[in-house]
């Protein structure tokens, strides 16, 4: 009598835990895994100007990887990524360092941290576009410099250039570096720094031997954010370069507007693999799980 009841209870418990996991599994399945799977499938299809034809062709990949335009675009995107990563890391680390070690009260730390997030109250596009009146030919910077008599004619490379693209990307992404680094720095026991000083370390030695090694997980997480965001960016490149530079995502967007969906899908799969390899490389260098 009681044996079957006990087994029913066991089954109910097992079902309950699956039910608890179901909502997230369904959401991720439908809105994340399924689309990626479809992109992977479509990347092997045939197409012309009128439609898509289910097939299994490697043409989309050979076309993409065989074209020097693709390689040049990848190189350009990697250049942006490297520059933006380096700059956001440099700026982000010092902002986080200042917040964590030079601001004494927790309240002030939180207030200043919130100030850092204020730009995020507007959209990406607005923050990007607002650079245009600043950097333009007759913009704030150029007109000020001319009025001060420092330059005879407007500087041309301020807007619609690689400089403008990198500047806007750094502006958009630095906070993604600040947040995780600030988080790891805040958890460094202050007595470690005193212990280092007691052992005769000067400021630079403390930074290099104690703070930087302990901030590694935060740097890794911030790097993953910045690298994935910049690798996949198309709007900043388009707006800030004035259409003169390309990125991989911009190339895909152009292919889609020409209805070359399978080609764009193949491109997307390649980009996904490249970005995953970069993330894997970051995780190889820093073991995030161990430090969290």
């Amino acid at each position, binding site marked *: 009598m009681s044996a079957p009841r006990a087994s029913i209870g066991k089954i109910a418990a097992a079902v309950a835990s699956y039910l608890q996991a179901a909502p997230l599994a369904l959401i991720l399945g439908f809105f994340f895994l399924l689309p990626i799977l479809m992109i992977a499938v479509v990347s092997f299809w045939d197409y012309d100007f009128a439609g898509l034809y289910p097939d299994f062709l490697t043409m989309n990949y050979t076309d993409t990887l065989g074209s020097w335009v693709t390689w040049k675009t990848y190189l350009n995107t990697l250049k942006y990524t490297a520059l933006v990563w380096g700059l956001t890391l440099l700026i982000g680390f010092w902002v986080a360092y200042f917040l964590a070690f030079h601001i004494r009260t927790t309240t002030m730390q939180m207030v200043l941290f919130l100030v850092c997030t204020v730009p995020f109250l507007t959209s990406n596009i607005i923050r990007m576009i607002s650079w245009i009146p600043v950097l333009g030919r007759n913009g704030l910077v150029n007109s000020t410099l001319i009025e001060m008599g420092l330059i005879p004619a407007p500087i041309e490379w301020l807007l619609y250039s690689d400089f403008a693209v990198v500047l806007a990307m750094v502006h958009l992404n630095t906070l993604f570096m600040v947040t995780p680094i600030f988080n790891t720095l805040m958890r460094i026991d202050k007595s470690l720094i005193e212990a280092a000083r*007691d*052992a*005769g*370390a000067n400021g630079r030695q403390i930074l290099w031997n104690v703070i930087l*090694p302990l901030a590694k997980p935060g740097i890794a997480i911030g790097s993953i954010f910045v690298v994935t965001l910049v690798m996949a960016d198309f709007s900043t490149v388009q707006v800030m370069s004035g259409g003169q530079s390309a990125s991989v995502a911009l190339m895909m967007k152009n292919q889609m507007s020409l209805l070359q969906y399978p080609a764009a899908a193949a491109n997307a799969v390649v980009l996904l693999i490249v970005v995953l390899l970069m993330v894997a490389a970051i995780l190889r260098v820093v073991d995030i799980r161990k430090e969290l």
Partner: protein
Amino acid sequence: MSKAAEIDIVSVSKIYGSTTAVHSISLKIPSGSYCCFLGPSGCGKTSTLRMIAGHESISAGDIRLGNTVVTDLPPAKRGTAMMFQSYALFPHLDLVDNVAFSLKMKGVDKEERRAKALEMLKLMQMEPYANRRPAQLSGGQQQRVALARALITDPEALLLDEPLSALDPFLKIRMRAELKKLQKSLGITFVHVTHSQEEAMALADIIVIMNDGRIEQAASPRDVFERPATAFVARFMGDHNVLTGRVVESGDGKVTLEVAEGQKFTVAGPAQAAGSPIDIGVRTDRVRLAAPSEKTLGFHGVVSNVEYRGASVKITVLGAGSDDFTVIATDADYFKTPVAVGDAVPLSWGLEDAVLLGRVAA
């Protein structure tokens, strides 16, 4: 193995904004001694230690270590090494690199510093764990590594900030013995901050009892136990009952005081002005549950609590203006004439069991 330094603290104060943590204290710690700073939390003992270490600036006064005034020197230039309360081992380095850290900062090359660190770990019997990270060690092992890291700088004085507070009671007693042994064999000055009376009594050559930023008494454990200098020391060490009253009569090497309830007590001591406030301490283990031979060496009270402790019984009595007058009776004495809560009991002690307590000039 190493030279020990005398530590001389001269009218040192520590002021944080509008609060004074340490009020102009002066103290000489002889070279090669084990000194314990003892007191309740917030009494200024840790601030004093951190000022000796150089992790806290000195607001006024000077500290001399050996022949050098170290007041304005950075921690590593003082010849002191500090062991932190939570040990502050670097979590990202293995034990060898932790111990070798100060040598690395000095620019000693890798082979040499690792060899020295291993030697130090060997001394602490931690060599088998040399390649582990601190998180893989128990509390007692972490403490040994922290000691090795502090001692590798060959300090003249080792400063320990509540080194035993993170350990469980059994380990505490074992590590305590190890610390004492280490201090004896190294012969350097140890300054140890603690809030445990037992720890200080067991370890120290000199106990410095602090309260409210001032030194109440600095003396050997025996002196502190037998002749507490002030009412605070007597209460904090817990071995004396404190009775407070006013002087009514003095002379002939004796002082008689009257407490608020009207009882009179006599204590040996120099003559005092009649009417001045006075505290006396009565040894808890010398009070007997018997009628006093002299009226001023005892009183009648009511038992408010009885605690059995095995070899002794702790009896708390209300009376003579005290609500926790404590009697520690041996179990044999107690069970001859047991008392219960609510009983009226006579209490008495000998003249030599009471001490006159002083007051700290504010």
